[in-house]
């Protein structure tokens, strides 16, 4: 893994932008672009990243950004890629930077189409598990029992396993990442540069606004997601599955931290502990954690 002191100092996320304090999206963007080193066109559908850029005529991102419609990110990227090809440019990376709503829900058709066409691009879903830009409504990525402004008493379904849907398209490179591990994230973007063809990255990204946790705890929460087994760090290069070193030991349920540690930090799960611990619902949440491990390991190994 890259050593922190070897990471480029050049910043493509410019200070004084419109992101909320503690926004983990900016951590992901910072290190993604450090890895890509500027030769990139970034396509952004409606999401927080369309807002954090700031107001016209200024932008807080020092990269070309094409903002596009909510359901159209992967299609727009297909057009950008085709234009580059038509002009003989085969080197510039075309990258979609979409939220979970724009990926799991409204954008899934365009994503599926672009992957199936073997578009040479990198699609990033930064997943904060909610429509945060519109005021935290449930998305297809919102976890079971999470409170949102359209699931006031907790969501009744677990999230869609988008990675399995994407893997059915057989991208050349697929990874999950987590902003609590920026060096790992950086490495994965570096690796994405090596593989021509459709690539997909899924980044777990705590959101202090939507998840209702103290703003300084974004890193702890990201780490707890891994240490409780809730989030699994892995890569897939073609058919080769690599379980991430952060996640390896938590494959064993015995080694996982109690899920309460992860849930209790977040206001969106506070109803699971009031007036007393809701055993049934927390068990369901834990069952889903194991279910996801089972499905992922069964599908990929």
């Amino acid at each position: 893994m890259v050593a922190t002191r070897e990471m480029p100092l050049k910043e493509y996320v410019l200070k004084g932008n419109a992101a909320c304090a503690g926004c983990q999206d900016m951590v992901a963007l910072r290190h993604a672009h450090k890895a890509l080193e500027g030769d990139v066109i970034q396509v952004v559908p409606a999401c927080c990243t369309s807002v954090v850029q700031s107001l016209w005529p200024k932008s807080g991102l020092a990269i070309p950004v094409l903002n596009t419609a909510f359901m159209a990110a992967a299609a727009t990227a297909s057009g950008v890629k085709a234009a580059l090809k038509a002009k003989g440019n085969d080197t510039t990376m075309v990258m979609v930077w979409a939220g979970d709503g724009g990926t799991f829900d409204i954008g899934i058709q365009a994503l599926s189409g672009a992957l199936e066409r073997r578009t040479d691009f990198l699609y990033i879903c930064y997943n904060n598990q909610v429509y945060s830009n519109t005021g935290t409504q449930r998305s297809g990525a919102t976890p079971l029992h999470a409170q949102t402004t359209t699931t006031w008493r907790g969501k009744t379904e677990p999230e869609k396993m988008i990675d399995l849907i994407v893997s059915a398209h057989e991208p050349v490179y697929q990874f999950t990442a987590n902003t609590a591990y920026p060096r790992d994230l950086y490495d994965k973007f570096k690796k994405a540069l090596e593989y021509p063809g459709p690539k997909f990255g899924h980044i777990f990204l705590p959101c202090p606004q939507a998840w209702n946790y103290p703003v300084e705890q974004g890193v702890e929460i990201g780490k707890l997601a891994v240490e409780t087994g809730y989030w699994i760090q892995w890569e897939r290069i073609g058919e080769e599955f690599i379980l991430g070193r952060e996640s390896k030991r938590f494959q064993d349920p015995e080694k996982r931290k109690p899920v309460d540690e992860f849930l209790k930090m977040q206001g969106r799960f506070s109803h699971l502990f009031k007036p007393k611990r809701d055993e049934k619902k927390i068990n369901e949440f834990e069952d889903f954690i194991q279910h996801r491990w089972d499905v992922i390991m069964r599908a990929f190994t």
Partner: protein
Amino acid sequence: MKTELMSANYAAARSVISARVEVVAAYPITPATTVPEQIALLNEDGFYTGQFIRVESEHSAIFACIGASSTGARAFTATSSNGLLLMDEGLHWAAAARLPIVINNINRSVSPSWNIHVTHDDSYSKRDTGWIQFYVSSVDELYHTIIQSFKLAEDERVLMPVMINSDGFVLSHTLSSFDYLEPEEVDKFLPPYSPPHWIMDPANPVSHGNIVFPEYYQEFRYMMHEGTQNALKVYEEVEKDYKNLFGKYFGGPIDCYKCDDAEVVFTSQGSIAAEAKDAVDELRDEGYRVGNARVRMIRPFPVDKIRELGSHVKGFASFDRGVSYGFGGPVANDIRASMYHTKYRPMIKSYIGGLGGRDMTVTDIKEVIKDTYKAVESGDLGPEETWHDLME
């Protein structure tokens, strides 16, 4: 230039070669389908050397064009009916982003009821997106208007996308001769597209389309309006150049035939307008002083041209092959609105018909024109709106 015999759709596919279109993205829908089919074949056989993206929906087709155009490529798509409706978000987007994309919309009825034949409801419903809209009457006109449209759209004074409408089946699948131009010939007319303002380029990063607050939003909308309006003047120049280079001229925004001394002019869009020429000739033989005003462009609306006509005719028989539900014939209404602030008061009678591909023959058109002629002669307007050939 060489003469070829093809359907309008095949000719449209050839136009992407002639105009050196760099990116095409399209999705099948009857009756537009044979455009992307032909482009695919031309692409696979090496005649069309641009990129062809076989997208998974019309929404993706227009947004792939938006991505391509934003990266400085000349982009084209073709669609029909529900496909155009699915593009709606992208139509508004392309116009506001000032991207000179060109669409060939092959007019088809909107569902339900399921009907694959011509009605102009699909494109009429897109009048307010900012797109320049042409309606053509022949294969030759379609082919050349597509080439002209890139020049028009890419002109810095315009920088708005263009939709060229051609009637489903009547044009799209009917073989007719047209004069094909090699790309080397078109080069004299159409230089490579060079975006004058912004482009997606890592060497000069800009962010397009981020937030604009109420302080400025309106100004951007005003500039869109200006751009579309400028198309009238710029198209005059485009047509002049085209005529000088290739000897082709299709009559400006309104192609007038025997209108100079006419008491009544028949206005219509699309293939009916070609049919109407014969109707006018026959009526002239029968002693009626009538003319045919073929409306080629409905956005921007050629207000001055309508006013000029309205200053000397006594009546307009305005035929729409589509409806603004609750307010009648869209072009008829635009003609009425255009005349209101003049001192001239020709009768303006609206006719709606030919929907769902129902045939409009020379006899039908003559009947419509005579109805207005009778109103003009009697001084009695009669119904403002008539649905032609409507069953009881």
